[in-house]
């Protein structure tokens, strides 16, 4: 059986003034149904561009030069815009770092969520019915007082709550895959944990596959089965989270592990903590 998502030899270029910039350069990875894969790498390594390539939402200057992105066997790079629109949000949902800015500032959160349901319902769903389903969904996701939240505007909600609402939005149409691009990087540590727990629990409960993009190796290993380490537009190492820490094969991965923040203790302690955690979850 085909994997849910299979990216092969993907090459993306930016047409800049001084020649093309290779943003993705022969990237390959695959993701099974219900699997949680972390995509880790330093800033500028092309993680976001990978996610956006799957969604076919790359900036206009970007050009896909080669490769394929198969969702359930069919190549998304060959799909037309109409087909892509139906896939976005329904089969593959993507959430971004800054959830507050991702919500229309002058539209009630509830209306924004209803828009998503209605966009994928072929015009049968009434706004009232959509509203009810959205409220129920927010309740399931563990957001208290959903009715009142839906009446609010994004500026009246905290960043953490906005991200939880985006997560609810991502699950609204029961997708097969969720791409989360640094969903918690803009949040404080406690909220970060809350949001990650929520996201990953929801994925596992519903059997939704997740592509979790982060630069935080610790976070990646804590929540995901498998980790892909990216550098300069290609995958340099991939494997089970636990193994990556105990026996990193690539020098680059070792460097990433060494670069883990030492502010809250020695690097040694950190690594020990991660190792034990990774060991527990695998």
């Amino acid at each position: 059986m085909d994997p849910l998502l299979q990216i092969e030899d993907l090459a993306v270029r930016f047409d800049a003034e001084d020649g093309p910039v290779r943003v993705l350069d022969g990237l390959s990875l695959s993701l099974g149904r219900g699997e949680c894969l972390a995509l880790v790498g330093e800033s500028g390594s092309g993680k976001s561009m990978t996610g956006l390539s799957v969604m076919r939402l790359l900036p206009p200057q970007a050009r896909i030069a080669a490769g394929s992105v198969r969702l359930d066997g069919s190549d998304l790079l060959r799909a037309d815009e109409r087909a892509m629109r139906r896939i976005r949000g329904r089969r593959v949902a993507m959430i971004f770092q800054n959830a507050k800015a991702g919500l229309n500032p002058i539209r009630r959160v509830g209306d924004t969520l209803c828009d998503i349901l209605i966009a994928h319902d072929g015009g049968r769903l009434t706004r009232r019915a959509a509203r009810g389903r959205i409220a129920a969904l927010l309740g399931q996701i563990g957001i208290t007082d959903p009715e009142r939240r839906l009446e609010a505007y994004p500026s009246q909600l905290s960043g953490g709550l906005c991200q939880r609402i985006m997560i609810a939005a991502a699950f609204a149409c029961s997708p097969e895959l969720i791409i989360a691009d640094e969903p918690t990087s803009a949040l404080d540590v406690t909220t970060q944990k809350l949001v990650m727990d929520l996201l990953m629990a929801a994925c596992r409960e519903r059997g939704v596959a997740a592509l979790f993009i982060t630069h935080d190796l610790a976070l990646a290993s804590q929540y995901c089965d498998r980790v892909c380490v990216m550098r300069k537009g290609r995958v340099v190492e991939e494997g089970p989270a636990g193994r990556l820490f105990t026996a990193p094969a690539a020098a680059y991965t070792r460097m990433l592990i060494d670069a883990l923040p030492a502010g809250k203790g020695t690097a040694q302690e950190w690594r020990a903590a991660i190792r034990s955690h990774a060991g527990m979850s695998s």
Partner: protein
Amino acid sequence: MKVVAFRLLGALPILLGVVVVTFALVRALPGDPAIYYASSPSAGPDEIRAVRQQLGLDRGWLEQFLIYLHALAHGQLGQSLLTGQPVLEDFRRLLPATIELAALGFAMGVGVALPLGVLAAFHRGGALDQACRAVSSTTAAMPGFFFGLLLIYLLYYLAGIAPEPIGRLPGSDIPPTRVTGLMTVDALIEGDPGLAWRAFCKMLLPAASMAIFAVAPLLRMMRGAMIDALDSDYVMTARAFGLTRARILISYALPNAMLPVLATMGMVLSTMLGANVMIEKLFAWPGIGAYAINALLGVDYAPVQAFVLIVAVMFVILTLVIDLLTAAIDPRVDVNG
């Protein structure tokens, strides 16, 4: 509605300031009404003194000002020396012509600038975008009355497709019975669509000359705001959730882009109110702008003061309307603020 009353009350000091400044400026202008309105150029000093006394101009400035304020407080704008009518009466007669013209001019400006701005934003860097940029820099550099002259020259003098650029109706037409004072509306009320159409055609050239003030700033603002909206995180997210292009445009990009455009509209309207003086003069349009210019040239104090005050009041009201509209679109704006 408490908000509206509160805001209008808050505008009173501004209006008072306008009253003081115009009062002083008008009197600082060269020319002495007493000499101007004496019976003949050869009038002796005695007669001039008598006229001055009659006009109340022999009193001290402060006293004159207090008398003026007192009259204002009772809703009186004074008497025009040129027309011999109360200024209020003149305005009642002339204001609808100005409003009809300004409204059409503004509608034309908005109707051209906003769609072009949106299209230019969609086709950034494309041919249409370049053309829009050319249009907005040309119109920004061109004074409205010059554009008016150009239109008259091309469309009336050369091509002969525009009606004679004088007044509100062709000379052969009899004006409809006055109900609203708006020529097109009155003609329709009288059941004469042909007349309404001819009145409308008469407005096209002067209105286009006024619209030219609105096009450049609105086009630029609309394009920029639309680009910002299209590049925003919320539009990106909306696309990532598979919303249709129409929905994204109508509920996401456009309303957000309209916010800065609305703010610009306030500014544009105020320049248009100022510009209408020249345009009305150029097209012999019987509105308050041409009236005020004539009064100014004729050292007729009361109408000039009243004109500036009326423009200031209109400006206050328009600003309020724009703020209310903004607050209706944007939940983050507090109208009380």
